[in-house]
């Protein structure tokens, strides 16, 4: 037993030694899951599927093409911020980390991220090459703090079989509304002819859904949601108009009321409603359903950005980016990060096969991108997308508060005015507590 324990401890000690392979190592931390069983040795990015498969193959390919470098990957549970914060507190952050654009401001405020302009310059990448949405998402106070990787936001996923039954198809495409009144009319027609709800909504346990709706249509009316870094402004005539519209949808039972995200997804793929407003990240799964004979969505799936209901056609979006936590690094490691940026920029198209929209304008106009299913229809999102201003901190927490209050207002648990005022008060208290 004693010998066994000794052998075990020796094995651990040896196993924890870093190999001196003469390569420059950089340490990358990401979410998107672990799929080493399927893609551990794959460098064929074109054959990889899904977020995990594509990112794993991309890193493998980078390592294969750069024999003097080695990207060591650490996969964290989504979204990975508790671990990242802990690593920063322990002065041992990774060299590269996946980050949502809405979170960058929190780390920048505490000077925990490096501006990436030097890396971009060395990689020959200009921020002008980024789409507007992604550039805004990674720019704070005029400095660029990450290499944008994609844009993601809400989309109207449509069951075209039910739309056909409802008489809402024209030239093979679903007829989407151009105003709030038109949406209500079409929804009533849809309900009458199909007996099913027009909207499948995840109003339960999914604050992002309600927040996205409120942000998007207030932005469309030109509302300034955050007049300064310490205040949100929701309780306005525009805020009330948007919230009252979603309340009306629910009062008329034109949308589902008591579904969480898994229930809403299951309802949509089972053909239980016309439109499911959810993110870009679901395109792959729904495409798979649309390609499977016998399934309700078989050959009857379409997807578009949120329709314009008022004012300007804009939509609230977020995005993934590659950030560089502040820490001591060798010149060789800095060079390695720059080369990694160049490689990822060159392979941004591959990532768009996940359903996310490109971070680079060139990919947006790349025929390969347009030839992917539905991408021509959703491409406008990359240009009409608007993130929250870079100076707004705690965007995730704020989304949680706004979504929770607005969902209560939308489904009638609270009067609209109360929901808006409480959301505003809670967010302002949160922002007021920040240094």
């Amino acid at each position, binding site marked *: 037993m004693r010998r066994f324990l000794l052998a075990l401890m020796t094995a*651990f000690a040896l*196993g924890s030694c870093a190999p001196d392979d003469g390569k420059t190592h950089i340490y990358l*931390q990401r*979410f*998107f*899951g*672990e*799929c*080493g*069983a*399927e893609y*551990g040795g794959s460098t064929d990015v074109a054959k990889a599927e*899904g*977020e*995990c498969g594509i990112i794993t193959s991309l890193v493998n390919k980078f390592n294969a093409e750069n024999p003097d470098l080695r990207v060591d990957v*650490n*996969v*964290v*549970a*989504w979204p990975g911020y*508790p*671990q990242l*914060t*802990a*690593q920063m*507190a*322990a*002065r*041992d952050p990774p060299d590269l980390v996946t980050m949502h654009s809405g979170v960058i401001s929190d780390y920048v405020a505490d000077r925990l991220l490096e501006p990436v302009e030097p890396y971009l310059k060395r990689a020959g990448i200009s921020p002008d090459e980024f789409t507007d949405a992604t550039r805004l998402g990674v720019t704070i106070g005029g400095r660029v703090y990450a290499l944008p990787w994609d844009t993601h936001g809400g989309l109207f996923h449509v069951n075209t079989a039910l739309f056909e039954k409802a008489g809402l198809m024209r030239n093979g495409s679903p007829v989407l509304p151009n105003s709030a009144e038109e949406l209500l009319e079409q929804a009533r027609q849809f309900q009458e002819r199909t007996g099913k709800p027009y909207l499948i909504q995840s109003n339960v346990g*999914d604050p992002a859904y309600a927040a996205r709706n409120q942000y998007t249509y207030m932005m469309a009316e030109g509302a300034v949601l955050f007049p300064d870094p310490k205040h949100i402004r929701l309780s306005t005539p525009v805020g009330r108009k948007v919230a009252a519209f979603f309340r009306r949808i629910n009062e008329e039972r034109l949308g589902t009321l008591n579904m969480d*995200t*898994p229930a809403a*997804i*299951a309802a949509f*793929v*089972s053909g239980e409603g016309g439109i499911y407003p959810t*993110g870009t*990240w*679901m395109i792959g*799964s729904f495409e*798979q*359903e649309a390609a*499977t004979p016998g*399934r*309700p969505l078989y050959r009857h799936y379409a997807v578009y950005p949120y329709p314009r209901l008022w004012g300007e056609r804009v939509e609230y979006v977020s995005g993934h980016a590659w950030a560089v936590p502040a820490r001591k690094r060798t010149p060789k490691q800095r060079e390695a990060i720059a080369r990694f940026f160049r490689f990822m920029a060159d392979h941004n198209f591959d990532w768009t096969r996940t359903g996310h929209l490109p971070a680079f304008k060139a990919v947006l106009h790349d025929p390969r991108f347009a030839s992917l299913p539905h991408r021509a229809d959703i491409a406008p999102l990359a240009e009409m997308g608007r993130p929250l201003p870079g100076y707004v901190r705690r965007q995730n927490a704020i989304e949680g508060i706004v979504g929770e209050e607005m969902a209560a207002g939308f489904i009638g648990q609270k009067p609209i005015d109360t929901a808006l005022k409480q959301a505003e008060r809670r967010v302002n208290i949160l922002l007021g507590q920040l240094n």
Partner: protein
Amino acid sequence: MAADLRRGRLTPLGWAGLAVGAAIMLAPLIWTLLLSLKDNAELVGHSDAALRAPYTFENYAAIMGNSLTLRWLLNSTIVALGQTAGVLILASLAGYGFARLDFPFRRALFIFVLVGLAIPSQAVILVQHQLFAWLHLHNSYPGLILPGLIAPFGVFFMTTYMRGIPRELDEAAMLDGASRWTIFWKVILPLTIPAQSTLAVFTFLGAWNDYWWPLISATRSDMYTLTVGLAAAQMNYAQTSGLGYLMAQAVFASIPIFIVYIVFQKQIVRAMAGTAIR
């Protein structure tokens, strides 16, 4: 005999109630197992597909296909066993001290330990993390095991148990010339086996299921415990597209606990009963 008597008293209605209770307890476990044996795509639209064949082991194959799964399993085993052993040793010694020895501020110290029961671990997580960072203990086994050794419940539990053991036993041993250590080691400790078993089970389960501290202390994937590793391996949004995989993870993570329970079932039941009687 006692079991027969109890069985004799149970009416058919009682049996029916027991059966219903057992079914309610077992239903989620069976549901989890069935879901874990289904193709993920089939479950996206209809989770009730779990009630119909065909079944597959592909989700378990995917878990085992991950090169780090066995490493995480080993890490969890080392951490859980390390914490269990440590807590048993420290809680027994402290419990004996509080139950049998007279020393200055004993009462105040015991209250101090009890106060520890009222402090949630989240309240001290920041300073604890900072301390372990200074000591360079993150991403190490000591870093994962040591915080679990602070076990005020264990000390309280063992103190209470040892106070219930008659002092006459100590006195008789002393008359025979036994030292304090001999009394502890040869007289008192063997009598606390039921309590030790109970405490061991609680500690092992707590350590095995712990997520929060390993999440922020073990930030390198080769040092993840099973709970953190399996969570990191997930890749589906809102646990919808990979429901079968998620359930397979749950089943996989609970297998060692299940084995522990099956192997030590007698001791566990006896320990619980013994504690209850006392």
